[in-house]
């Protein structure tokens, strides 16, 4: 696929270079900046509603000045708006930060660079995918500014609650915006995903066989396939919901009485919606997790100066996770009144997925074992990410067991579980990725010390928020409660909720360290060398300054896998992929 080197360095205008760019590196940066802004909004929302949960009786004039007098009259958060904040927090973090942001940034940056391609298969589609992502982000953020509030039915927006404005104000215009935004978002994901798949399959440089791909690329590849197979189902799910809302159909509605009397709708079922939603919703978890695991694989191997242990087992377990993720969705629905036999089946498939996950964890640990670990912020975040993957995965075993789920379903136990396993694992890996590839993104180095401080704040506050939630859940406290004070039986958790809110606030505020480091370093950071981490993969053979087409002259040729760290008989503790094998050298 080696086409001629594009060395045409014609002057580009500001607009084609920074805005409607088709260059994958710039698009990656656009995704990253959009995701950081959305992430800022998402975590800020969580800090706002944690105020209500930690101090249920106090008034915060701050809330009124931020959210307006409809949402927080006299500084006391309105209960509908509480649900609105929860809903948007979930939606933004899951879709806009950890799906669009994580995959979008690193797939775009790394796929062409690590496989040795000049750019994505289609630069135009890539640009369209980003701008659709931008539009959907703007729509979602805009729904915070309308009078009736954003969607309020939880990030899963189950009907019938999300169908009629009579049920809650957010199901009016807010929900319409939510659905429109998601439709655009899905289009963006599909276009992006197809582009990633085609690029990985067709544009690998000479010698870059599938089994010489870095694990990041394998992760993005499987993620893109999962997305392409599951997002269309969410689209159809959303279209049917749109029809129920606007055109009087009853796909999800049956036998409903509102304040204006009995509705005509019969024959539909909200359970249908749940099946369709979770058919995307569960693969979605792995759409978030796999890129995270890919990034940690790369960082842990590089920074331990040791080949990733069990390269093929890592690929195999990612494929197994990818496949299994399509047949476990029912574990979100154990309590819906679904046939109990089906519940049993989903328990079985769900617990199966723990096996490849366990294999991955043990492989990470063995990679570190007898390594020579350089503690960069990226490495710290990667270790943190593996740690949360273990901690959250383990509570998943409790929830996956349908019999135990009866007592945990929809309680704070679930909130603690998925925030640790999905939220923290993915966000820590995303930070790891930013710290690790910042020299490639901006040609500058980030401040290491600030990075470490940021790590310790993040991990301590993260665990500080989510571990106590497991105890709330064990105590029977339901999630999505505006206040728990209506139930004196939960009063002994008042202090614990204060603690959680304090950790949450510190955790959110401490992200300022990252914002500052990011912005400061991208302008004033020390200039990066070409290969600052002494890594093997191809992106470190490109010039520091971004050029269109990535490499001057010919594309590099690949002779070995990307994990030849500390190989016996080699002078350096790393051997880049484009170094030919010695005469008597075995590949690995």
């Amino acid at each position: 696929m080696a086409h001629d080197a594009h060395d045409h360095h014609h002057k580009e205008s500001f607009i084609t270079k920074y805005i409607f760019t088709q260059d994958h590196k710039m698009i990656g940066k656009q995704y990253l900046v959009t995701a950081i802004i959305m992430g800022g909004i998402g975590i800020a929302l969580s800090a706002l509603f944690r105020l209500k949960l930690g101090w249920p009786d106090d008034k915060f004039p701050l809330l009124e000045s931020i959210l307006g007098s409809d949402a927080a009259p006299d500084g006391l958060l309105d209960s509908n708006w509480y649900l609105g904040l929860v809903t948007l927090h979930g939606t933004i973090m899951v879709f806009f930060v950890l799906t669009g942001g994580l995959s979008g940034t690193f797939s775009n940056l790394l796929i062409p660079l690590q496989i040795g391609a000049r750019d994505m298969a289609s630069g135009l589609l890539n640009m369209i995918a980003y701008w659709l992502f931008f539009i959907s982000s703007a729509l979602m953020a805009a729904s915070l500014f309308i009078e009736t509030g954003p969607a309020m039915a939880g990030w899963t927006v189950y009907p019938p609650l999300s169908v009629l404005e009579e049920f809650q104000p957010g199901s009016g215009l807010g929900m319409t915006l939510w659905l429109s935004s998601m439709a655009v978002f899905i289009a963006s994901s599909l276009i992006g995903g197809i582009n990633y798949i085609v690029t990985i399959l067709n544009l690998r440089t000479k010698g870059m066989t599938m089994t010489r791909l870095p694990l990041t690329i394998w992760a993005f590849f499987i993620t893109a396939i999962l997305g392409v197979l599951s997002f269309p189902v969410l689209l159809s799910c959303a279209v049917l919901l749109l029809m129920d809302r606007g055109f009087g159909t009853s796909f999800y509605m049956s036998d409903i009485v509102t304040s204006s009397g009995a509705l005509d709708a019969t024959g539909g079922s909200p359970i249908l919606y749940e099946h369709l939603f979770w058919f995307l919703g569960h693969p979605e978890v792995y759409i978030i997790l796999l890129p995270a695991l890919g990034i940690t694989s790369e960082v842990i191997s590089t920074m331990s100066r040791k080949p990733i242990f069990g390269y093929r087992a890592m690929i195999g377990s990612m494929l197994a996770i990818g496949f299994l993720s399509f047949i476990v969705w029912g574990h979100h629905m154990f309590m819906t009144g679904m046939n109990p036999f089906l519940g049993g089946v989903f328990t079985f498939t769900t617990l199966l997925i723990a096996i490849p996950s366990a294999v991955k964890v043990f492989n990470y640990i063995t990679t570190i074992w007898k390594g020579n670990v350089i503690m960069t912020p990226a490495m710290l975040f990667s270790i943190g990410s593996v740690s949360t993957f273990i901690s959250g995965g383990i509570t998943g075993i409790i929830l996956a067991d349908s019999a135990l789920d009866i007592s945990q379903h929809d309680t704070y136990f679930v909130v603690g579980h998925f925030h640790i396993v999905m939220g923290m694992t993915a966000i820590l890996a995303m930070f790891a990725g930013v710290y690790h590839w910042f020299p490639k993104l901006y040609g500058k180095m980030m401040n290491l010390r600030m990075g470490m401080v940021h790590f310790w704040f993040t991990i301590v506050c993260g665990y500080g928020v989510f571990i106590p939630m497991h105890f709330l859940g064990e105590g029977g406290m339901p999630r999505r409660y505006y206040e728990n004070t209506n139930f004196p039986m939960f009063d002994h958790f008042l202090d614990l909720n204060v603690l959680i809110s304090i950790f949450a606030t510190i955790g959110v505020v401490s992200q300022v360290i990252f914002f500052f480091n990011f912005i400061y370093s991208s302008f004033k950071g020390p200039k990066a060398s070409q290969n600052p981490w002494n890594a093997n993969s191809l992106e470190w053979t490109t010039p520091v300054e971004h050029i269109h087409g990535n490499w001057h002259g010919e594309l590099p040729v690949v002779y070995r896998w990307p994990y030849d760290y500390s190989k016996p008989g080699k002078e350096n503790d790393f051997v880049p992929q484009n170094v030919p094998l010695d005469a008597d050298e075995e590949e690995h």
Partner: protein
Amino acid sequence: MFNWWVILPVFFLTNGVLFVFSWKYYYRQERKALYFPHDNKLELIWTIVPAVALSAIVIYGLKTWNDIMFNDQEGAKVVEVYGFQFGWWTRYSGDDNVLGKADYKLITASNPLGVITSENIQNSYNYLDGEVEKINLLLSESKNVEGEYFLSANNVDSLIGRMERFKRQKYRIKSAIDRGDQNDSVYKSANDDVLVQELHLVKDQPYAMTFRSKDVIHCPWVPHLRMQINAVPGMETSFNFTPTTTTQEMRAKPEVIEHYRVINEIHNERLKKLGEKEEKVEFNYLLMCNKICGAAHSNMKMDVVIETAEEFNSWIAEKPTYAQKASE
């Protein structure tokens, strides 16, 4: 419990090993890392060991799940719990242990569950006719002398739409529910049903609970009994169980007494801060909503009392059945 014994050691071991390795193999200039790319035997071990542990969990879990979900005890009493924005109804099936049929089209203020009786059918007709009449009147009053509406077109459309819906509803009741003279015999199982807003249960009595919802998905959740299942509009869900400890017995347990001493302290401290009167909190079973359902989701509760058969009988004897209400 069994799961915790598997899980907690794994949690501490793996996290511990991860941290120890990260610390022990901290970078030193002179050392070179071990080149150890793969070992199939190790991979095999840590595929098989988790697989075995998980098999045990799956088998044990499925056995428990099946015991809970497929326990058709004999002599189980049928009780219905019905959720709405924002509260609960309980309907006891009475002596015949059969709940009278219900249909959402019959729901009115006086018939919150839409239970079918000839009286309720008649009430619904009256109610629907009345609504149609009201809208007709409103529309005719909203015309000027030329016969044009001075309401907005949207408003008129929605009023007419509403009126048509009420007419359709009446037609649907007439064609699908109303059996004319036979109503009393076809729908007689409703007669001894009792409708209340608290849930009283008898100790050691097996129950077959059924759940429905009026508007959105709710989830009856009794944390003390570890019992929950969704109430879904348009379908009926069910759950069988047997309560084993009465409210009074729970209150007498030393650990519960101690726990509620603490809760009272915290509770009243908070009330004092708010300037409200002190109150005594006692142990009570509670049914709450565990599926997001709107503004008052966090205040959607119903008292649950578990008691002896005698206590229950004297309590329910005072509650009117549907037949008694109709004859009043």
